[in-house]
C-alpha cells in the first residue's frame, strides 16, 4: 500500500522540474515584443546624435561620398584585391538581384517585373564619379530604395570598386591582362566569367 504515495512523490518531484523561470528570464530577445514601451518594441531607435564607438563620421569622403556638396571622384583609400573580393561578394548579394551579375540590369527581380535599372556599362555611368554610386547606395535612386541600413560604408566602397571592375572588364582586351595571367584566364574564363 506504500506504492501509490511513492509514485505520487516521484511524479510531483518530476513536475517541479517543469519550471521555466530560467528558460525565459526577464531579458528580452532581439525583436521581442514588450509591454514596457508604448509601441511594444524592445528594439529601440537610437537617440539622435548617438555615435557608435569607433565610428565618429568625421571623414566626409568615406562616409558621405561628398566634399563640400560635390560628389567625389576616386576612392578613400587605394583599392585592394581583398576589397574587390568583398565588393564582388556584396554586389552579388545586394545588387545583382536587379542589376544582374554583370551589371547590365537583367537581375532575376527585373525578370519578374521590377523596372529595369540602367546598365552600368552605359557611358553616363562610366563617366559618373564614384561619389554618385555612393550616394545612390546610401539614399536610393528612382525606384531603388536606400541600402544604407544593409550595406555599411566600407562595403559600399568595396561595391563601387567592383562596379568599376565590371565596367573595365566589359571593354577590356586580352592585351590588358598581364601575360602571366592569360592562360589562367582562358582556363577559368567560363567559371569566373560572371563573377
Amino acid at each position: 500500500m506504500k506504492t501509490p504515495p511513492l509514485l505520487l512523490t516521484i511524479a510531483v518531484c518530476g513536475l517541479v522540474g517543469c519550471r521555466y523561470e530560467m528558460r525565459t528570464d526577464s531579458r528580452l530577445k532581439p525583436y521581442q515584443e514588450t509591454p514596457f514601451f508604448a509601441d511594444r518594441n524592445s528594439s529601440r531607435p537610437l537617440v539622435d546624435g548617438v555615435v557608435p564607438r569607433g565610428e565618429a563620421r568625421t571623414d566626409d569622403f568615406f562616409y558621405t561620398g561628398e566634399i563640400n556638396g560635390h560628389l567625389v571622384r576616386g576612392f578613400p583609400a587605394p583599392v585592394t584585391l581583398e576589397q574587390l573580393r568583398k565588393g564582388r561578394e556584396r554586389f552579388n548579394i545586394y545588387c545583382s538581384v536587379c542589376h544582374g551579375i554583370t551589371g547590365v540590369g537583367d537581375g532575376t527581380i527585373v525578370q519578374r517585373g521590377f523596372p529595369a535599372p540602367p546598365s552600368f556599362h552605359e557611358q553616363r555611368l562610366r563617366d559618373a564619379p564614384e561619389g554618385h554610386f555612393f550616394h545612390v547606395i546610401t539614399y536610393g535612386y528612382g525606384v531603388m530604395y536606400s541600402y544604407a541600413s544593409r550595406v555599411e560604408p566600407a562595403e559600399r566602397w568595396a561595391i563601387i570598386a567592383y562596379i568599376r571592375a565590371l565596367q573595365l572588364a566589359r571593354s577590356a582586351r586580352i592585351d590588358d591582362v598581364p601575360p602571366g595571367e592569360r592562360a589562367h584566364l582562358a582556363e577559368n574564363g567560363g567559371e569566373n566569367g560572371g563573377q
Partner: protein
Amino acid sequence: MIQARGPEWMRPGCRRRKRIGTRQKGGYRSGIRISRENIRGAFLVLPPARGDRWNMPQIFSPRVSLWFKTALIVAPFAVVLGGLAAYRFSYSSYPTQVNLPLDQPVPFSHQHHVGGLGIDCQYCHTTVTKTADAGMPDTYTCMTCHSQIWTEAPVLQPVRDSLSSRMPIRWTRLHNLADYVYFDHSIHVNKGISCTKCHGDVESMPITWKKVTLQMGWCLECHRHPAAAFSPPDAVFQPPQVFTLNWRLDADPDAKRFVQKQLAGVPSVRELTDCWTCHR
C-alpha cells in the same frame, strides 16, 4: 532470550525454519523472519500483532495477492517503458516544434525567394556574419521589391500596413533558444558552418519550419566532431553548393584543405564542449 512459541517448526533449533536476523548470545533476536505465511504477503502484510506474531491470518485473498505480485513484476517494465516514451516525446515535434510550420502574419516562402529567385540569405539576414543575431529584415527590405512587384497582393497587406503605420511585422519565432544559452551566428558562419547545417534546406520550404531540435545534445554533436560540420567557403550562403544534397566533404579535395585550415583556427574539442562555451 526469545521464548519458544507457535508451532513446532517455528521454534529455535528447528531446521525447517529459515531465519534472518542478528545472531546474538542466546539465539536470534527479532528480525524479519521469512515463513510461509510471511512470504505470501511480502511487503504487503501489516506487522503481526505482538501476541500473535507468527500465526496471523492472511489479510488478502490469493486473488488480490496475485494482482499485487503481477503489479510488482510489471512496475519496473512500466517505469522503463514510460521513461523511454518520455525520452522519445522530448524529441518529438510537440515540444520541439521540429517540422511544424507555424502561422505567420505573412506566409513568406523561402522556396520562392531563395530557391526560385536566387536571393542570397544575407540580402535579408544582413547581420549574420557580423553579430550574434542573424537579423530579421525590416519592412523596408520587403518593400524594396514589393513597392513595385505584387503591389496589390492581399497576402502582402500586412507588409504595406506595417510600412504605413511604422509598426514592425510581428513574426512568430521558430527558433526559441532557452535564455541560458548563448549562441552567436557570426562565429559559426564565418568559420564555415553552412546555414543548412542548422536550418535545413530552407530553399525548398514554402513556409518556414524548424529543422532541428536545437537541444543541447544536438549542439554537442557538432561541438564534439567539428570537422564534420564544415562546408567549403563559397557554400556557406550560395544555394548552388549549400543545397547540393549529394555534395560530400571527403570527395572534394579543396573542401578538405579548407576544413584543415579552418580547424586550425577552431578551439579544441575540450574548449568547444566546455560548459562556458554556450552557458555564459
